[in-house]
Protein backbone atom coordinates (compact mmCIF):
# COMPACT_ATOMS: atom_id res chain seq x y z
CA UNK A 1 0.00 0.00 0.00
CA UNK A 2 1.29 3.45 -0.90
CA UNK A 3 1.63 5.57 2.23
CA UNK A 4 3.03 9.00 2.98
CA UNK A 5 3.43 9.90 6.64
CA UNK A 6 4.25 13.30 8.00
CA UNK A 7 5.22 14.26 11.49
CA UNK A 8 4.49 16.19 13.48
CA UNK A 9 0.89 16.88 12.43
CA UNK A 10 0.75 20.00 14.58
CA UNK A 11 3.63 22.32 15.37
CA UNK A 12 3.58 25.44 17.46
CA UNK A 13 6.77 27.46 17.29
CA UNK A 14 8.04 30.72 18.59
CA UNK A 15 9.40 33.27 16.18
CA UNK A 16 13.13 32.94 15.69
CA UNK A 17 13.28 29.21 16.43
CA UNK A 18 14.30 26.36 14.10
CA UNK A 19 12.40 23.15 13.46
CA UNK A 20 12.14 20.23 11.03
CA UNK A 21 9.10 18.52 9.53
CA UNK A 22 9.57 14.90 8.43
CA UNK A 23 7.98 13.03 5.53
CA UNK A 24 8.34 9.24 5.17
CA UNK A 25 7.00 7.30 2.21
CA UNK A 26 6.49 3.61 1.67
CA UNK A 27 7.85 2.75 -1.77
CA UNK A 28 10.12 3.90 -4.54
CA UNK A 29 9.20 7.27 -5.97
CA UNK A 30 10.17 9.39 -8.95
CA UNK A 31 9.83 12.69 -7.17
CA UNK A 32 8.68 14.41 -4.01
CA UNK A 33 6.88 17.72 -3.63
CA UNK A 34 6.34 20.12 -0.77
CA UNK A 35 3.24 22.34 -0.84
CA UNK A 36 1.97 25.11 1.39
CA UNK A 37 -1.73 25.68 2.04
CA UNK A 38 -3.19 28.74 3.78
CA UNK A 39 -6.68 28.42 5.36
CA UNK A 40 -9.38 28.37 2.68
CA UNK A 41 -6.82 28.53 -0.10
CA UNK A 42 -5.40 26.10 -2.58
CA UNK A 43 -1.97 24.50 -2.61
CA UNK A 44 1.12 26.49 -3.47
CA UNK A 45 4.09 24.56 -4.75
CA UNK A 46 7.24 25.13 -2.70
CA UNK A 47 9.79 22.52 -3.82
CA UNK A 48 10.22 19.62 -6.22
CA UNK A 49 12.92 17.12 -5.26
CA UNK A 50 14.00 14.74 -7.99
CA UNK A 51 17.01 12.75 -6.84
CA UNK A 52 18.78 11.32 -3.86
CA UNK A 53 20.61 13.99 -1.90
CA UNK A 54 18.66 16.82 -3.53
CA UNK A 55 18.52 19.96 -1.41
CA UNK A 56 16.55 23.09 -2.24
CA UNK A 57 16.26 26.33 -0.31
CA UNK A 58 13.91 29.28 -0.54
CA UNK A 59 14.14 31.94 2.13
CA UNK A 60 13.76 30.35 5.56
CA UNK A 61 12.71 26.96 4.18
CA UNK A 62 15.03 24.18 3.08
CA UNK A 63 13.93 20.79 1.76
CA UNK A 64 16.03 17.67 1.32
CA UNK A 65 15.50 14.16 0.00
CA UNK A 66 17.04 10.81 0.95
CA UNK A 67 15.61 8.23 -1.44
CA UNK A 68 17.39 5.32 0.24
CA UNK A 69 15.71 6.10 3.55
CA UNK A 70 12.51 7.20 1.75
CA UNK A 71 12.62 10.36 3.80
CA UNK A 72 12.28 14.04 3.07
CA UNK A 73 12.69 16.89 5.51
CA UNK A 74 11.48 20.48 5.49
CA UNK A 75 13.65 22.61 7.74
CA UNK A 76 12.48 25.96 9.02
CA UNK A 77 15.11 28.46 10.06
CA UNK A 78 14.37 31.42 12.35
CA UNK A 79 10.61 31.10 11.93
CA UNK A 80 8.44 34.17 11.34
CA UNK A 81 4.67 34.55 11.69
CA UNK A 82 4.16 34.63 7.92
CA UNK A 83 5.22 30.98 7.74
CA UNK A 84 2.08 29.92 9.63
CA UNK A 85 0.22 27.53 7.28
CA UNK A 86 -0.27 23.83 6.63
CA UNK A 87 2.59 22.10 4.83
CA UNK A 88 2.05 18.96 2.80
CA UNK A 89 4.52 16.57 1.28
CA UNK A 90 3.35 14.60 -1.73
CA UNK A 91 4.99 11.70 -3.50
CA UNK A 92 4.61 10.80 -7.15
CA UNK A 93 4.41 7.16 -8.16
CA UNK A 94 4.65 6.59 -11.88
CA UNK A 95 4.33 2.85 -12.19
CA UNK A 96 1.88 1.79 -14.86
CA UNK A 97 -0.58 4.50 -15.81
CA UNK A 98 -0.55 6.30 -12.50
CA UNK A 99 0.15 9.99 -12.63
CA UNK A 100 -1.27 11.03 -9.33
CA UNK A 101 0.29 12.37 -6.15
CA UNK A 102 -0.08 10.70 -2.76
CA UNK A 103 -0.26 13.34 -0.02
CA UNK A 104 0.60 13.20 3.63
CA UNK A 105 -1.94 14.46 6.16
CA UNK A 106 -0.14 17.77 6.47
CA UNK A 107 1.67 19.61 9.24
CA UNK A 108 -0.19 22.58 10.64
CA UNK A 109 2.42 25.14 11.63
CA UNK A 110 1.65 28.01 13.94
CA UNK A 111 4.38 30.57 14.58
CA UNK A 112 3.78 32.74 17.61
CA UNK A 113 5.46 36.04 18.41
Amino acid at each position, binding site marked *: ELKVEQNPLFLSMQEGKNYTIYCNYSTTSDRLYWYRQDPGKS*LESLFVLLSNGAVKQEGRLMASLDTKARLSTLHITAAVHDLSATYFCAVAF*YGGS*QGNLIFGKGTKLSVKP
Partner: protein
Amino acid sequence: GAGVSQTPSNKVTEKGKYVELRCDPISGHTALYWYRQSLGQGPEFLIYFQGTGAADDSGLPNDRFFAVRPEGSVSTLKIQRTERGDSAVYLCASSQGQGQPQHFGDGTRLSIL
Protein backbone atom coordinates in the same frame (compact mmCIF):
# COMPACT_ATOMS: atom_id res chain seq x y z
CA GLY B 1 -6.34 33.31 -17.16
CA ALA B 2 -2.92 32.21 -16.01
CA GLY B 3 -3.96 29.59 -13.49
CA VAL B 4 -6.32 26.65 -13.05
CA SER B 5 -9.88 27.91 -12.73
CA GLN B 6 -12.60 26.02 -10.89
CA THR B 7 -16.30 26.82 -10.75
CA PRO B 8 -18.35 27.19 -8.70
CA SER B 9 -16.19 28.14 -5.74
CA ASN B 10 -18.94 27.00 -3.38
CA LYS B 11 -21.85 24.63 -3.91
CA VAL B 12 -24.53 23.79 -1.37
CA THR B 13 -27.14 21.19 -2.27
CA GLU B 14 -29.44 18.65 -0.72
CA LYS B 15 -28.75 14.99 -0.25
CA GLY B 16 -29.75 12.99 -3.32
CA LYS B 17 -29.18 15.78 -5.83
CA TYR B 18 -26.85 15.75 -8.83
CA VAL B 19 -23.89 18.15 -9.04
CA GLU B 20 -21.34 19.13 -11.66
CA LEU B 21 -18.01 20.73 -10.85
CA ARG B 22 -15.98 22.39 -13.57
CA CYS B 23 -12.24 22.74 -14.06
CA ASP B 24 -10.52 24.89 -16.65
CA PRO B 25 -6.82 23.95 -16.74
CA ILE B 26 -3.84 26.05 -17.67
CA SER B 27 -3.77 26.47 -21.43
CA GLY B 28 -1.63 23.83 -23.10
CA HIS B 29 -1.56 21.47 -20.13
CA THR B 30 -2.35 17.97 -21.34
CA ALA B 31 -2.64 16.32 -17.92
CA LEU B 32 -5.54 17.07 -15.58
CA TYR B 33 -6.16 15.68 -12.11
CA TRP B 34 -9.06 15.72 -9.64
CA TYR B 35 -8.49 15.40 -5.91
CA ARG B 36 -10.81 15.54 -2.90
CA GLN B 37 -9.77 17.15 0.38
CA SER B 38 -11.71 16.56 3.57
CA LEU B 39 -11.33 18.83 6.56
CA GLY B 40 -7.96 18.36 8.24
CA GLN B 41 -6.70 15.90 5.65
CA GLY B 42 -4.41 15.95 2.66
CA PRO B 43 -5.87 15.82 -0.85
CA GLU B 44 -6.88 12.34 -2.05
CA PHE B 45 -6.54 11.40 -5.70
CA LEU B 46 -9.72 10.76 -7.67
CA ILE B 47 -8.95 10.65 -11.39
CA TYR B 48 -6.25 11.62 -13.89
CA PHE B 49 -6.73 12.55 -17.56
CA GLN B 50 -4.07 12.56 -20.21
CA GLY B 51 -5.69 14.40 -23.09
CA THR B 52 -9.30 13.32 -23.48
CA GLY B 53 -8.99 9.91 -21.87
CA ALA B 54 -9.03 8.92 -18.23
CA ALA B 55 -5.60 7.36 -17.73
CA ASP B 56 -6.30 6.40 -14.12
CA ASP B 57 -9.68 6.51 -12.36
CA SER B 58 -8.70 4.25 -9.48
CA GLY B 59 -9.43 6.93 -6.90
CA LEU B 60 -13.11 7.39 -7.69
CA PRO B 61 -14.89 6.11 -4.56
CA ASN B 62 -17.88 4.50 -6.30
CA ASP B 63 -20.00 4.61 -9.46
CA ARG B 64 -21.81 7.77 -8.36
CA PHE B 65 -18.69 9.68 -9.36
CA PHE B 66 -17.82 10.29 -12.99
CA ALA B 67 -15.59 12.75 -14.84
CA VAL B 68 -15.20 13.76 -18.46
CA ARG B 69 -12.81 15.84 -20.52
CA PRO B 70 -14.32 15.63 -24.02
CA GLU B 71 -12.03 18.04 -25.85
CA GLY B 72 -8.88 17.57 -23.80
CA SER B 73 -9.19 20.89 -22.01
CA VAL B 74 -12.08 21.65 -19.63
CA SER B 75 -13.12 18.82 -17.34
CA THR B 76 -16.33 18.22 -15.43
CA LEU B 77 -16.61 16.08 -12.31
CA LYS B 78 -20.13 14.72 -11.91
CA ILE B 79 -21.61 13.31 -8.72
CA GLN B 80 -24.97 11.56 -8.75
CA ARG B 81 -27.28 10.95 -5.77
CA THR B 82 -25.08 13.00 -3.47
CA GLU B 83 -24.55 11.91 0.11
CA ARG B 84 -23.50 13.93 3.16
CA GLY B 85 -20.15 12.13 3.12
CA ASP B 86 -19.41 13.70 -0.28
CA SER B 87 -18.97 17.07 1.43
CA ALA B 88 -15.39 18.20 0.87
CA VAL B 89 -13.24 20.56 -1.17
CA TYR B 90 -12.75 19.23 -4.69
CA LEU B 91 -9.42 20.31 -6.15
CA CYS B 92 -8.36 20.26 -9.77
CA ALA B 93 -4.76 20.39 -10.94
CA SER B 94 -3.11 20.44 -14.34
CA SER B 95 0.39 19.82 -15.63
CA GLN B 96 2.27 19.92 -18.91
CA GLY B 97 2.40 16.15 -18.86
CA GLN B 98 2.86 13.16 -16.65
CA GLY B 99 5.70 13.77 -14.24
CA GLN B 100 5.58 17.54 -14.55
CA PRO B 101 4.69 19.76 -11.54
CA GLN B 102 0.96 19.97 -10.86
CA HIS B 103 -0.66 23.39 -10.50
CA PHE B 104 -3.76 23.51 -8.35
CA GLY B 105 -6.92 25.56 -8.60
CA ASP B 106 -8.66 27.14 -5.62
CA GLY B 107 -11.13 24.28 -5.38
CA THR B 108 -14.88 23.90 -5.10
CA ARG B 109 -16.22 23.61 -1.57
CA LEU B 110 -19.16 21.18 -1.80
CA SER B 111 -21.60 20.95 1.08
CA ILE B 112 -24.36 18.32 1.09
CA LEU B 113 -27.17 19.10 3.51
